[in-house]
């Protein structure tokens, strides 16, 4: 009896955690960049898509270059380095270039106009990625197949999703430590309160600004890297991720790390259990949740920034 319940519930919980991981990596960047730099980027989700596309290229290139010559273990390590380090780095560089050229002119605009301008940016990024990777679904599951599956309470489960969840948990803990314990973290928090005073205190706010921005974009890129070995990527998916990113932002509260963690978990569990038990309503529930949170606690679960 217990075994049966476990075999039914455990896969759903693990699915929920994996979903939550991707959502956390997606939503946190959006949230900290908005909360601390006051820049609302509708196009943020496109960095996750970019991360996934770059991962596909990295995986394909690595496999074709060394796949035949080294053993599975070595190949896996090389792939992991590529996904966890190289992909976020490339996405960050792209993000930084865009920051210099496209985003700098719109920092001064009101939130509303930032949304509109970055709506334009997302259209450009989508077509840019289409130009490079084509319009067809891109898929590369080698890292996942190398890791294989694990038998859990009578059902098989892909290790990749567990690995991705673990990586995300470590990152969440690190970020938490960073903002609570380190000097840069404290400065960033102070900047969220008042940019000018921090500047007057002799701190190079622009450099802090860039660091926070790069972390946010890199996390989205990493989200794409962890996502791809499990599922394919197509242009057009970014509009879906845009909505989910904002769901995390709104439910968790603007600029709150705790909020992003909580919101990602909440959405992950709602979607996972919702899809299992009430498949008709799974997607609708997320938006009901989003509207409900905004009505009951407009600042989000953990937000304290005035709505």
């Amino acid at each position: 009896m217990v075994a049966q319940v476990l075999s039914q519930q455990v896969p759903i919980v693990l699915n929920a955690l994996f979903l939550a991981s991707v959502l956390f990596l997606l939503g946190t960047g959006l949230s900290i960049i908005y909360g601390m730099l006051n820049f609302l980027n509708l196009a943020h989700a496109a960095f996750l898509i970019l991360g996934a596309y770059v991962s596909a290229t990295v995986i394909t290139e690595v496999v074709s270059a060394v796949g035949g010559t080294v053993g599975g273990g070595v190949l896996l390590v090389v792939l992991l380095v590529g996904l966890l380090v190289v992909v976020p780095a490339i996405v960050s560089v792209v993000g930084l270039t865009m920051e210099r050229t496209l985003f700098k002119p719109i920092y001064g605009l009101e939130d509303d106009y930032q949304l509109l301008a970055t709506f334009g940016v997302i259209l450009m990024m989508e077509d840019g990625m289409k130009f490079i990777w084509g319009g067809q679904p891109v898929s590369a599951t080698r890292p996942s197949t190398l890791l294989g599956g694990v038998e859990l309470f009578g059902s098989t489960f892909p290790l990749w999703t567990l690995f991705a969840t673990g990586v995300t948990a470590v990152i969440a803990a690190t970020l938490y430590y960073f903002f609570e314990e380190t000097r840069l973290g404290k400065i960033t928090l102070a900047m969220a309160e008042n940019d000018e005073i921090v500047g007057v205190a002799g701190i190079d706010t622009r450099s802090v600004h860039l660091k926070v921005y790069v972390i946010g974009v890199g996390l989205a890129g990493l989200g794409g890297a962890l996502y791809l070995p499990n599922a394919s990527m197509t242009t057009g998916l970014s509009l879906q991720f845009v909505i989910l990113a904002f769901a995390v932002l709104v439910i968790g509260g603007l600029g709150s790390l705790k909020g992003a963690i909580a919101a990602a978990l909440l959405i992950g569990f709602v979607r996972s259990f919702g899809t299992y038990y009430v498949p008709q309503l799974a997607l609708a529930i997320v938006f009901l949740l989003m509207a409900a949170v905004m009505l009951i606690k407009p600042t989000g679960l953990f937000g304290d920034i005035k709505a």
Partner: protein
Amino acid sequence: MSQDTDTGKRTVIQDSLTTPSGLAAAGLVVLGLGLPYLPGTGQFEVFLTAQILAFAIAAVAFNVLLGYTGLLSFGHAAFFGGSAYAVGLVLRYTEIRELFVLLPIGILAAAVLAVIIGYISVRHTEVYYALLMLALSFLLYVVTVKLYTFTGGTDGVPIPSPTVAGVDYVAAWGYSGFLQGVLYYAIVLAFLVSIALMWVFMNSPFGLTLKTIRDSPDRARAIGIPVVRYRWYATIVSGVFTGVGGVMYALLNGHVTPGTVLHWSRSGELAFMAVLGGVGSFFGPIAGAGAFILLRSEAQQLTEYWHFVMGLVLFLVVVFEPAGVAGLVKRGYRKANELIDERRRE
């Protein structure tokens, strides 16, 4: 309403008919009315103009919120698509085929949605308003896609041509005759009436109150304006007229799907039109709707990367020309005046 405002309004109208821009507007109206009879005008030009007018109604209505009340909505697809779907579902499930019944039904649907969605959303402002509108309208989209057996899911619903005042013009004149002789004029009429009504609203004390709220909500509150309630009213007015645009689009298009009328990117497009035309100007969004549709049509013919072109244009307009086409025209007009003055001086 006092005698004075009435007289004042009359003077305004008289004045505006004697100014160059007033004359230009009158000329455009005459041109619009005569369009199907102009030499060289085919069915497509009539269709395209009607489409621009349908979107122009919605874009001006959108700007009632963005330009006049200072609220950005990412949920206007709910009103645009809500009214279009109301018409589609009535056509699907009843024997009603009459334009003069369908139009009020569509408007009513948009009004009900605007009352409910607006009531919830106006508790917040700025980006929260935008996001709440987005969430609620997306809910409507998801539900419409999900209720496949009732709504037809992503296949959408067909919109067969309606009768007008009981006459089946399609049977009598063929579709082309109906489009160019009846539907087009219905849309022109809906456009003129909607624009006139919104213009009156925006230049009434109601409109001035909205502007006061936009410029400073705190000051508005201090002088006793119920800010939240007025924002709600503005959302309803905007939603209702967006619904008029939605009905006209549906009748013209002949088929509606969730993807074309209810998806949040449709809200983004309305915002695009308003910004492109110029949110600071009442008539700007009309130009914006026209520019948007022509631009997109051209871009699609030019390149498969037309999303990029549209995105770039939106970005550049927001960053470099926030006053939109209206701003460009105004500047051009001023430049021209200066040049004329210079010439005179010489």
